[in-house]
């Protein structure tokens, strides 16, 4: 078999560090820049430090103790509320992506003129007050439950609010998380030549579902991950809607139940721990995203 005799010598060098990554040289940071950064750091650090101080310092005994953190996992209702929230968050993410991914791919490939429309629709929830939203939802559900028992509308309204299968929460959360998920996915989609990827995959014999699964989604991984994490954080922190709809996810548990624990230190300890956990996850996503940019989608060397 004939083989090509040589390859052109200008093979792209293997990049080992992310483009643009520079070591921070503290000597070059001017005093005023340092001042601005310091103020910003104080803005974030002081409340957190105060919160941490409150959780570990007992003003009556004047002793330090990490015991509130030890009590978290054994606190009544903690596991149930966390598990409930995780289920709602996962459902929210799944519904959100089932709606967004096909719509965004379709707009990008066949209906680019609808892109501004989709973008505007996805951004609407940013200007929608959660209170207004939940009052509307509550009114509609109430109207459903006022129907004759046994009618489909009555049953649907009841099922949607069933504490064991709280479908109404992910449905509403999809709306309020839409801007974040859309932005994350859109940013990812702009870094790939979606049409060529799709056509290459289809031309090689992949069906549409396989094309999306094997050729498109792996290249949107960073956006998918970022959108999912933002949605998770939003669902974990959301209080108004779940409280008015009388569910008890994590945020409602912190406010309503954990307050009853000894000396009131448990609630801020839980808040602090969940905040640190969220940050850790976000850093992890950011780190993976950075690596992804180098390993997968950077074509500048071509």
């Amino acid at each position: 078999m004939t083989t090509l005799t040589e390859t052109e010598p200008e093979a792209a060098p293997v990049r080992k560090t992310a483009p643009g990554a520079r070591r921070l040289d503290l000597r070059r940071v001017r005093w005023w820049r340092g001042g601005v950064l310091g103020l910003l750091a104080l803005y974030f650090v002081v409340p957190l430090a105060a919160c941490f101080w409150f959780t570990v310092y007992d003003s009556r005994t004047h002793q330090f103790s990490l015991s509130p953190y030890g009590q978290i996992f054994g606190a009544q209702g903690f596991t149930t509320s966390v598990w409930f929230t995780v289920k709602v968050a996962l459902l929210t993410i799944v519904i959100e992506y089932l709606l967004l991914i096909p719509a965004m791919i379709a707009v990008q490939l066949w209906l680019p003129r609808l892109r501004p429309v989709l973008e505007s629709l996805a951004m609407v929830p940013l200007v929608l007050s959660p209170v207004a939203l939940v009052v509307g939802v509550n009114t509609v559900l109430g109207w459903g439950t006022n129907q004759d028992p046994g009618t489909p509308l009555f049953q649907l309204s009841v099922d949607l609010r069933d504490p064991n299968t709280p479908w109404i929460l992910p449905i509403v959360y999809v709306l309020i998380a839409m801007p974040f998920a859309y932005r994350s996915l859109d940013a990812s989609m702009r870094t790939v030549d979606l049409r060529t990827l799709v056509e290459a995959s289809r031309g090689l014999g992949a069906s549409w579902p396989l094309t999306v699964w094997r050729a498109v989604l792996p290249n949107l991984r960073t956006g998918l991950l970022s959108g999912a994490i933002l949605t998770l954080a939003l669902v974990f922190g959301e209080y108004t809607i779940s409280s008015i709809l009388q569910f008890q996810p994590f945020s409602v548990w912190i406010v309503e139940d954990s307050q009853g624990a000894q000396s009131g230190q448990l609630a801020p300890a839980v808040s602090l721990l969940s905040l640190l956990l969220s940050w850790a996850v976000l850093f992890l996503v950011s780190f993976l995203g950075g690596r992804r940019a180098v390993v997968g989608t950077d074509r500048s060397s071509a």
Partner: protein
Amino acid sequence: MNTTAPAPAPASDSAAARMRGVGLDLSGLHRSFGATRALAGFDLSLAPGELVALLGPSGCGKTTALRIVAGFDTPDQGTVSLDGKDLTRLSAAKRDMGMVFQSYSLFPHLTAAQNVGFGPRLRRIGSAERDRQADELLELVGMAGMGGRYPHQLSGGQQQRVALARALAVRPKVLLLDEPLSALDAKVRLQLREEIRRIQQEFGITTLFVTHDQEEALSMADRVAVMRAGSLEQCAAPAELYDRPATAFVAQFVGTMNHLSGQIIEAGRVRVAGRELPVDGPCPTVGTKVKVLIRPESLDLAAASAEAGTAESAGAGQVLMATFLGATTRLTVRLGDGSEAKADLPSHRASEFPVGSRVDLIPAPRPVLAVEDADDTAEG
């Protein structure tokens, strides 16, 4: 058909041995995008194992035709058939065609070997066999040992080699090449086009190749199909296309062409530059002023015969510029009517006519194309 040195016989179990070309027919293809007509009754047939280049200016419909063959677009009218089987409405995923795109199309999240194995994996070929095939094809395209690299770790030329291996891995009935070399630098382009041609001949795979680069088309293809405004102007072997263009458009589009003023003096004969030449193809009526199309290599020069103060011959002019091209030099001559003509002479002869010297044009005594002079028609 172009010929190259015979390739070594492929091993019986090699990828090449498993592929043979089939005939491809495009018949009466029409395609419009709004008010823009991309294809207007386009017909083309490819014999099994043949490489046909679709050549034409931007917007002539060549990429639309290729996308319709690939199944990425559907014609408004017309059919695409493979070995007599109508594929027009068949999904791209079921056509068994391999395509190499103009833009780098490797899947960024997969290594070179995984990219090559993408198609076979869809066909449920086991991983061991997939790896063996990927190694074999990567070696074929000169990428042995680079299967573990990601696309961003490869140069543009290397990415296109992997894309070619990936297209061949699905044992396509037809190979479609959509300007695969246009993003590469000149040296790599030259090297890769020879290698694509060699692999295509070794595999005997029917290939449709879209390009706007006439040199690429003429050097690689068995036949070149010149397109204009959505339809086929001429499809012929490169030498025939160059020497005997069927239309004035093909004559002007392929290679460099002089347009010398002339007049039909009798049926099938034209007077140009003081000489009478036979007209090839349709001939305007006697007495019509025409533009005579002559290649630069079909023009010779001689030192001016007219002495100072006497009337110049119709082909007399003055050398304006000399462009050294290596073995030949292109001399640009301004004629008495203000028009310019280009003549390619061997460099040692061209030195006899320095810039500013007076010369006579001497067309080679071959049949020429003559088209009605648009300016003259407009005036008249």
